[in-house]
């Protein structure tokens, strides 16, 4: 016998009623991995929850911005039938991350809580030139060696106090809290450095403890953290006044003031030296120039010129004198000649002759004539030309 056929919608209605009445399906806790995560325009988040062999669709009537594909989660929700499609899905009330995801989720919650309280706003200024540095770390760890080396690189008189703390395992939390308390009680150090070398997530997770965070927040002395490596950031890093990526970086940050001064001093000294050298060089050049300029004012050329002129003047004066004397002498001779000639003229007037040779020299001496010498016998109005026949000396008695 065949059954009376029912409609599809009637079937789906029945399935929905049947499933809704099941208390287990109304109160589900399902474990699985998220995939195919997407958010619709309406703000609903859809994903598929799977295990090794099977999947089921899920919907959140809210926007889930935390979940990622691949997250292993536990879903709280209820099953619901989508009548029109004949499919079913889980309506998700809440999602819980499990395993690693859970720890991180808890941490995010804690972060949110503390941030809301304003505990991340702590920003005390560090002393520029710390005189006393307190360090909370393991005295046998790797961190302290690096830190001390960094402090030694600066020529400053710094007191260092180390609060030896375990930095591994659960007990370490108390050490760190005690360390912060003690430094604050004694109130000797100007800055506290909390440090630990690199490690696994578990190793560094102790610094995510809320009690440590609260103690750090309460600290009146500024706290610098230098925990782990570059990418690690724990809760105390957020609360601290200054957070650095590594122990060495934290130590560098603390002594920054000294290093700056050192650099400034070195630079100033260098400038002083080179400025002074330059100044001395410039002045030295100016001096040399001055020397040459000074020398150029010496009348060296002039002296030579004047000396020459003096000589010229001297010669001129001498010459003029000599010339004058010569001239006078010459004039004198002319006068004398004139006078002599005058005497001869008187003689001619008397009718007495003056005898001269053919070139006009008056014969006065026997040496001027010999046989055959042509003579001119000069009378006043006429001249006789005669030839010598003979010459004879005439001696006179000397009385």
């Amino acid at each position, binding site marked *: 016998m065949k059954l009376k056929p029912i409609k599809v919608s009637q079937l789906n209605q029945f399935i929905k009623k049947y499933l809704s009445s099941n208390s287990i399906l109304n109160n589900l806790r399902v474990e699985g991995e998220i995939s195919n995560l997407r958010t619709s325009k309406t703000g609903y988040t859809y994903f598929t929850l799977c295990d090794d062999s099977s999947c089921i669709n899920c919907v959140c009537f809210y926007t889930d911005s935390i979940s990622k594909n691949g997250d292993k989660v536990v879903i709280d929700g209820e099953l619901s039938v989508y009548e029109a499609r004949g499919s079913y899905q889980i309506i998700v009330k809440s999602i819980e991350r499990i395993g690693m995801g859970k720890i991180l989720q808890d941490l995010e919650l804690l972060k949110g809580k503390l941030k809301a309280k304003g505990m991340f706003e702590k920003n005390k200024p560090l002393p520029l030139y710390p005189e006393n540095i307190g360090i909370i770390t393991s005295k046998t760890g790797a961190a302290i060696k690096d830190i001390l080396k960094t402090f030694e690189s600066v020529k400053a008189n710094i007191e260092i106090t180390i609060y030896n703390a375990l930095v591994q395992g659960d007990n370490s939390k108390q050490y760190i809290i005690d360390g912060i308390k003690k430094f604050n009680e004694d109130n000797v150090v100007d800055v506290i450095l909390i440090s630990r070398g690199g490690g696994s997530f578990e190793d560094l997770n102790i610094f995510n403890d809320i009690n440590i965070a609260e103690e750090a927040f309460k600290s009146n002395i500024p706290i610098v953290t230098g925990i782990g490596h570059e990418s690690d950031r724990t809760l105390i890093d957020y609360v601290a006044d200054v957070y650095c990526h590594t122990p060495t970086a934290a130590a560098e940050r603390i002594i920054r003031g000294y290093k700056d001064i050192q650099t400034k001093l070195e630079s100033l000294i260098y400038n002083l030296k080179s400025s002074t050298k330059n100044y001395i060089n410039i002045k030295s050049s100016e001096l040399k120039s001055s020397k040459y300029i000074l020398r150029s004012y010496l009348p060296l050329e002039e*002296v030579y010129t004047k*000396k020459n002129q003096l000589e010229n*003047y001297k010669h001129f*004066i001498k010459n003029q*004198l000599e010339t004058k004397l010569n001239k006078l002498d010459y004039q004198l001779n002319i006068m004398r000649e004139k006078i002599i000639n005058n005497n001869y003229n008187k003689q001619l007037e008397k009718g007495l002759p003056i005898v001269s040779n053919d070139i006009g020299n008056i014969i006065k001496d026997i040496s001027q004539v010999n046989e055959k010498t042509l003579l001119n016998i000069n009378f006043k109005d006429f001249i006789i030309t005669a030839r010598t026949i003979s010459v004879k000396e005439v001696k006179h008695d000397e009385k």
Partner: protein
Amino acid sequence: MMKNNNQNYDSFEAAFEELKQIVQNLEDIDDVSIDEMLKSYEMGMSAYSFCMEKLEDTQKKIKIIDSNFE
């Protein structure tokens, strides 16, 4: 170096100027009497000697300054 009559002059420039004047006066020898000529000659030589000595002194002093301060 003879030092006759060298003290008459106030300065090198004065002596030199006088020498120049004497030279000018002697340009035309006909205008000058023999006595004047002789006088001029003596004064000229005196001025010349004064000037020459001054110049040579100066040169010597420059040398000394150079060697003192180089």
